[in-house]
């Protein structure tokens, strides 16, 4: 058993996002609130995170004006709720290279970043293609690539090839190639219970359980560079990693986490969801 506290921290949200973008084929089924979150894992003298969000200076106004993203708050403010400073974060697991998961590297000056090498190499390959292939570059920011250069030169970029066990005590990285992106990965944490952090391999509970509680099924996410088949099979692998319990596979964009686990809203209106509490840590909810 590993003595970890784990929190899902909201840093922004979209008030009304169409469900069909999140759940494959859910057309004309309305809109849902879509939170943007990262995960904080604290224990064994370390602070780790799953993803880092996006950089408001670079995209905030565009996102707010065009896409309705609201209430972005910087990591310094969000993490202060856990008594953590960005400088304290030692290890960051990037589930995939989209700007809203990898776009805030520079706010974590002491962290080592783990990313699948395939994610990097395939994005680089996609850049060499002609203009008509530009859909493959969706969500990628040249600025993030430049920041990755800096990370690599500082020895803070760890390119992972496939699965890697015990990257920290009880924390494993699992490759999910050709799914949401070419080199996505998910993270398992064995605390008192086992938790799986899936990035965008699932956006909603429906991706992992379907819509009929009496007859569950996997339904892929609404956006994939890779294949729906691989997403389905990865969903099965993630649920198995969570001991067969889909409620322990955590999609950070799922607004209903607050109904599933102890949660509260901060004074800034951001949600904190507490999944595990280490001995000696204070509850945040």
């Amino acid at each position, binding site marked *: 058993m590993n003595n970890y506290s784990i929190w899902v921290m909201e840093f922004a949200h979209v008030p009304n996002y169409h469900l069909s973008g999140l759940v494959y084929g859910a057309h004309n089924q309305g809109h849902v609130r879509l939170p943007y979150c990262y995960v904080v894992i604290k224990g064994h003298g370390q602070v780790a995170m799953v993803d880092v969000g996006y950089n408001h200076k670079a995209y905030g106004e565009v996102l707010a004006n065009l896409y309705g993203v609201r209430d972005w708050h910087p990591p310094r403010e969000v993490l202060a709720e856990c008594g953590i400073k960005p400088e304290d974060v030692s290890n960051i697991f990037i589930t995939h290279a989209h700007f809203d998961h990898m776009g805030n590297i520079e706010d974590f000056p002491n962290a080592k970043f783990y990313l699948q090498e395939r994610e990097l190499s395939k994005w*680089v390959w996609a850049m060499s293609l002609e203009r008509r292939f530009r859909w493959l570059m969706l969500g990628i920011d040249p600025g993030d690539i430049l920041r990755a250069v800096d990370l690599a030169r500082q020895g803070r970029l760890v390119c992972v090839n496939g699965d890697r066990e015990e990257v920290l005590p009880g924390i494993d990285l699992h490759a999910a190639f050709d799914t949401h992106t070419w080199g996505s990965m998910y993270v398992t944490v064995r605390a008192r219970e086992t938790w799986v952090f899936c990035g965008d391999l699932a956006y909603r509970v429906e991706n992992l359980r379907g819509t009929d509680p009496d007859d569950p099924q996997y339904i892929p996410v609404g956006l994939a560079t890779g294949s729906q088949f691989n997403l389905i099979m990865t969903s099965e692998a993630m649920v198995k990693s969570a001991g067969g319990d889909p409620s322990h596979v955590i999609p950070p*964009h799922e607004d209903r986490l607050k109904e599933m686990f102890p949660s509260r809203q901060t004074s800034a209106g951001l949600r904190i969801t507490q999944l595990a509490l280490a001995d000696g840590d204070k509850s945040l909810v």
Partner: protein
Amino acid sequence: MNSQPVDDVTAAYILETRKTFEDLRQVASQIAGVLVLAAAGGKSATPDHPMLEAAAELHREAADRVRSVRPTPRARAHHACLAQAAEALSLALSASQRMEVEPMLIPVRAAYAHLQRAGNTLPGFEMVAFEQGCCGLTA
């Protein structure tokens, strides 16, 4: 982003230069991609990497278009940013012939900043392709 209204001639300028902006952004990404490979110790990061050839060709075409387009008074700042970005990328591509990371990285960073500024002077120019993107970007 500058939200002042755009006149018809400037709107035509925007349509004419959008591809040029995207191509310069792509050139910056391509050079940065090779730099990542170099910084991560990739053996393929050599001056004859195919992506650098592709970047040089795309840059040639984009720089030609920057030179030939005539900006309106409203678009002058935007055009100046494009020209500066093209010039910076030219320096980076020259340095890539020797695969020197720092002399490549500094102008690429400068080009990125010029393109960001261009995006702030007129509507319709974004550093990230958000359309149909993930995580709520088409809300």
